[in-house]
C-alpha cells in the first residue's frame, strides 16, 4: 500500500523540527529514531508502563500511544529538555540523591510524570503523588524510594522557585 508521507513541524525542548514522516510512526519512535533523543524509553508500546512519558503542551502523555503526525504544530518536552546550563534538573538530582532508581529504564518516564505533577501542585500530598506514580511502572525499586524522590524534588523546587 502506497501511503503518503506527511510534513510535520514540532517544537521539542524549545527547538523547532521539521520532518517528512509516515503517518504510522509513533511519537516515541520519532523522538528516538528521527531526532536522536533517546532519553525517552520504549517499554511496553501499549500504554501500560509509562517509560515513554513526555510532556505535550505541558501534559504528561504516553508517546507510544500517539502518532508523531498528531504532534504537528505542538510543543513537547522530553527528559533531555530538563538539563539547563549542563546541570541536572532538581527533579533529576532528587531521584539520584533519594535513590529513586536502580536500572534506570523507567526513570525518564517517572521524571516527566513528576515534572507535570510538581508544576501543577508544588506541594502535593502523598496520595496525589501515588496517584500520578501509579501511571509508571518500576520493576527495581519497590516505589518507596521514588515517592521519597518526589518529596525531595518538591522541597528542592520550592526553594528554587518552581519546575522551570
Amino acid at each position, binding site marked *: 500500500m502506497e*501511503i503518503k508521507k506527511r510534513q510535520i513541524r514540532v517544537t521539542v525542548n524549545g527547538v523547532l523540527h521539521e520532518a517528512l514522516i509516515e503517518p504510522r510512526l*509513533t511519537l516515541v519512535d520519532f523522538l528516538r529514531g528521527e531526532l536522536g533523543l533517546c532519553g525517552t524509553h520504549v517499554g511496553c508500546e501499549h500504554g501500560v508502563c509509562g517509560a515513554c512519558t513526555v510532556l505535550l503542551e505541558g501534559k504528561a502523555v504516553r508517546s507510544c500511544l500517539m502518532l508523531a503526525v498528531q504532534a504537528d504544530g505542538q510543543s513537547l518536552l522530553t527528559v533531555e529538555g530538563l538539563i539547563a546550563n549542563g546541570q541536572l534538573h532538581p527533579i533529576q538530582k532528587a531521584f539520584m540523591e533519594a535513590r529513586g532508581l536502580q536500572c534506570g529504564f523507567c526513570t525518564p518516564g517517572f521524571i516527566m510524570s513528576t515534572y507535570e505533577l510538581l508544576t501543577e501542585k508544588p506541594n502535593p500530598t502523598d496520595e496525589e503523588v501515588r496517584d*500520578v506514580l501509579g*501511571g509508571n511502572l518500576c520493576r527495581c525499586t519497590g516505589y518507596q524510594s521514588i515517592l521519597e524522590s518526589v518529596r525531595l524534588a518538591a522541597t528542592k523546587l520550592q526553594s528554587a522557585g518552581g519546575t522551570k
Partner: protein
Amino acid sequence: MKPPPFDYLVPGSVREAVSLLKQHDGEAKLIAGGQSLMPLLNMRLARPAALIDVNRLKDLDYVREADGGLAIGAITRQRTVEKSDLVKNRLPLLHAALQYVSHPQIRNRGTFGGSLAHADPSAECPAVALALDAEFRIAGPEGERKVKAGDFFLTYLTTVLEPTEMLTEVRLPLLPARTGWSVQEVSRRHGDFAMAGVIAVMTLDGSGKCSAARIVLFGVAPTPIRAHAAEQVLAGAKPGEAVFEQAGKKASGVVEEPLSDIHASGEFRRHLAEVLTRRALAEASSRA
C-alpha cells in the same frame, strides 16, 4: 509492536469527518485520544485503511450546562472533565468515577466520548452514562440522531454507532434533590481495569423511603448493565442493612454467566457484584 500502514486524514469539521467515514465505507476508524485504539494498532489487532483524526475538532471540546444538565463534547479529555468545576459541583458522581479511569497520564489524552464509543465492558464512563440515563448525540450522513444510554451499548466493544457515524456530544442529567450516589470498584491495583464495579444512585422521599434507585454493574457482563431486580428491592423500602443485603443478592444474580478471564473468575465477579452493590447502596443512602 508497530502500527500497520494506514492513510491519515484530518477533517476540519464533524461534517467532513462523517463524509470521510462514508467515503471509506467502514474501512476507516476515527481516532481521538487513542488510548485504546493505539494499543490495538501497535498490536495489529486493528488494521484500518485510514485513520480520521478528530483531535483538531476543538468545537467538540467543552463541558457546559444545557437543559438543566451537563453537555460534554465528545473529544473533551477525561482529565478536563475530571477537573471541571461544573462537574465537581454539579455532578460529583462523574468526578468520582473518573478517578478510577486508569492514570492521570492516560486521562490527559483519553477522551470522554472515545471511552463511550469504545465501550469496554470494564470501563467507568459507559457505566456512568447508563446510571444517569445519558443521551448521546450522533452525527451521520443523514444528519443527527439521539440515542439513550440504555440503547447505546450492544455488546463487547460494540455500540449502535454505524461505521459512518460519529459521537459528538453526551448530555448528562443532574441528580434530583435528596439523591445520593456511590461509585465502587475492585481492581488488582488502582488504575487497572475493573474486575467489577457498581454505580448506585438513590432518591429518598419525605418519609426517608427510597422512591427511586438505579444500580449499574460494570466489568461483569459484555456491557454495563442495570440490576433491575436489585432496584426493585429498594423501591418503597426504608434503606437499611437488611435491604442492602437483599439487593446485593439480587444484583449477583443479574448476570447469568459473568465474564471470566485471567483477571477474575466469573464466580469471583459475581461475589464482587453482591458485595459492591451492598457497599454502594449504603454509601448512596448516606449521601441522600
